[in-house]
């Protein structure tokens, strides 16, 4: 069931301090339009990479939306995140075509490379590893998407290579191996 996406918090994480005034322009734009909840949440996440607690409270105060409704929606859709994510989000496709072409091996290789489990963020806060349903590049299966870039016909090794080159770009330091 969809609500199962929200994992129970075992350790209380400190919310990153964010500049809430950045939200003002789109709050103004969507404040009085019908069906504005999803676009408001999408824009908020666009700013911060996730929806911070304070942003929910601000939306409640400045629009006609209720906190409980917003939480309901944010926990329903796969797109929304309630926790900070890494700078680079790796979406490994687990659609049918990718599954048939062994997408599991890609996720496993990346879990090994990044030393995190599926759905987690690396300790340095650079990478978040996610599984997604289908990216629609089925004929290039297995694929993964990083930012707006899609990488196709992967093997465990080539997926690792992509990550290593991004890490070098992000950190400015070559990685071990």
């Amino acid at each position: 069931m969809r609500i199962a996406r929200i994992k129970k918090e075992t350790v209380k994480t400190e919310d990153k301090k964010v500049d809430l005034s950045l939200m003002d322009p789109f709050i103004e734009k969507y404040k009085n339009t019908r069906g504005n909840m999803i676009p408001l949440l999408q824009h908020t996440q666009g700013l911060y990479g996730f929806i911070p607690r304070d942003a929910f409270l601000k939306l409640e105060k400045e629009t006609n939306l209720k906190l409980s409704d917003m939480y309901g929606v944010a926990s329903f859709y796969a797109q929304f995140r309630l926790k900070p994510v890494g700078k680079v989000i790796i979406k490994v496709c687990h659609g049918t075509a990718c599954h048939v072409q062994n997408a599991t091996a890609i996720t496993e290789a990346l879990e090994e490379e990044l030393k995190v489990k599926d759905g987690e963020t690396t300790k340095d806060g650079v990478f978040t590893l996610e599984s997604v349903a289908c990216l629609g590049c089925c004929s290039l299966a297995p694929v993964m998407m990083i930012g707006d870039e899609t990488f196709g016909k992967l093997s465990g090794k080539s997926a690792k290579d992509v990550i290593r080159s991004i890490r070098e770009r992000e950190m400015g330091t070559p990685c071990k191996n």
Partner: protein
Amino acid sequence: MKKTKVIVGLGSCGLAAGAGKVYDKISTIKKESNLDFELKKTSCIGMCFREPLVEVIDDNGSYLYGEVDEKRAAEILEKHIKNAEPIKEYVVKTDLFETKDKAYFEGQVKIALRNCGYMDPEFIEEYEEREGYKAMKSIAAKKITPVDVIQTVLDSGLRGRGGGGFPTGLKWRFANNNKAKTKYIICNADEGDPGAFMDRSVLEGDPHSVLEGMTIGAYAIEASDGWIYCRAEYPLAIKRLNIAIEQARKKGYLGKNVFGIEGFNFDIHIKEGAGAFVCGEETALMASIEGERGMPRKRPPFPAESGLWKSPTNINNVETFANIPWIINNGAAAYAKYGTAKSKGTKVFALTGKIKNGGLVEVPMGITIRDIVFKLGGGIQNDKKFKAVQLGGPSGGCIPEYLGDTIVDYDSVNSTGAIMGSGGMVVMDETTCMVDMARFFLDFTKKESCGKCTFCRIGTQRMLEILQRITEGKGKNGDIEMLIDLSNQIKDSSLCGLGQTAPNPVLTTIKYFRDEYEAHIRDKKCPAKNCKPLLKYEINPEKCTGCMVCKKVCAVSAISGERKQIHVIDQSLCTKCGSCFAKCKFDAITVN
């Protein structure tokens, strides 16, 4: 002499295959040399297995080059553009000589995909050159009434291409019969079926045909606003739709008194989905546009009476809308000429999985599955044995090889237990385990169940647990019967299509591949050698040459042995990844 054109395919697949770099390379060479040609962009040509694709059009005709990397691109410019010598062995499609991929194009009829790959989707003018907006203009000029438009669509026999297969004309008539003041039209572009991507291709490659189709629909049912509900996973499609809508507004094709038709005010908005498979269901989709959790609502009232914000609403999918302008331009009879008695026209299939020629094919209804797989698709990768196709994604089912002569039309496909669905056709070979496939789909539907109906919410979870157990070698007698019982209860007790169809992959795999289930449960064996917990990799001492290749490739160092000595796999360390099996040149590694 016309100027030579060089066109690069920059759809999502092409970009993923490296077409962006190819475009940049050609662009650089163009700047640095004095070669005289026009460099253009287009979108997905559908021939994904040969991406990146570059088309060269010179005085003799068109040459489509496949698998073009930066090196090949430079070569093509040097030989074909500079010296006027086409490089025949790289050409995958041309009318001028035979190519090895000829069979892929023969038998295809492009109606919905008529413009994909033939124009730059970011220019409205190019669409208009290809009969774009002609249908809407002739409706305006000839003062064709909404009722007549609906009649044409009815006569064409077009049925909903999103999977339901409901006659589009009939849907429009219901919406037209309702005389409410405010009505809406929605384009369902929430292509959530894992394994289907034709809607993405149409949106990226020919967004205007969808806008025109929607405008014709709005005119027919007298709607004032339209929404395109598009997956957020398709950023390029959303970008191109936004460009297309802006251009159409500027030309007066959207807005007030559209196409000069007095009183016909119509505009289109884009709604980005937020990632929920259930939103492909029409009532859930409307709840999502309204900003709520995408949970299905009870029908009746049907959307044609009370839909979006309680106004009468008509929903069609992308491919359906893309067909509409062609039908108006060419007439209902021209469309109905293709297909079978009850399923007219063409259907786009996304051919993926263990197939040689993966990509999009548009074929007339009535072609057999075997012909799609072997004639157009070129057969199975590495010439393995064709086992089954999965049609209709998680809502559909498997059709085994021996039913390969089933023709594709709504009713024939339904009679096998699968559904046409949106047209994802995942091809499976002898190495695909059917129990694992069923488990994969249940895992998907379990996660995507919205939780409203108990049987769907809990039933899919229980089914998944059973399937999980079977693939781990812990299956019990009675599991198959329990799966069938649960399936029937979920089908009977779910409100929407998701729950009603979720058990289909399990039911069809049990129906056609019961022996595989039994092998897992009784013999603790996976005949396809796919379910890891049931496998054991061993080295045959008689065949091992001690070449050390397997030892090097093993990621967990489970293989030991010196050069020219027989190697051994430590079963306690082996993760059963299969790398050694794939690398061994001497068939010395066995799987059981």
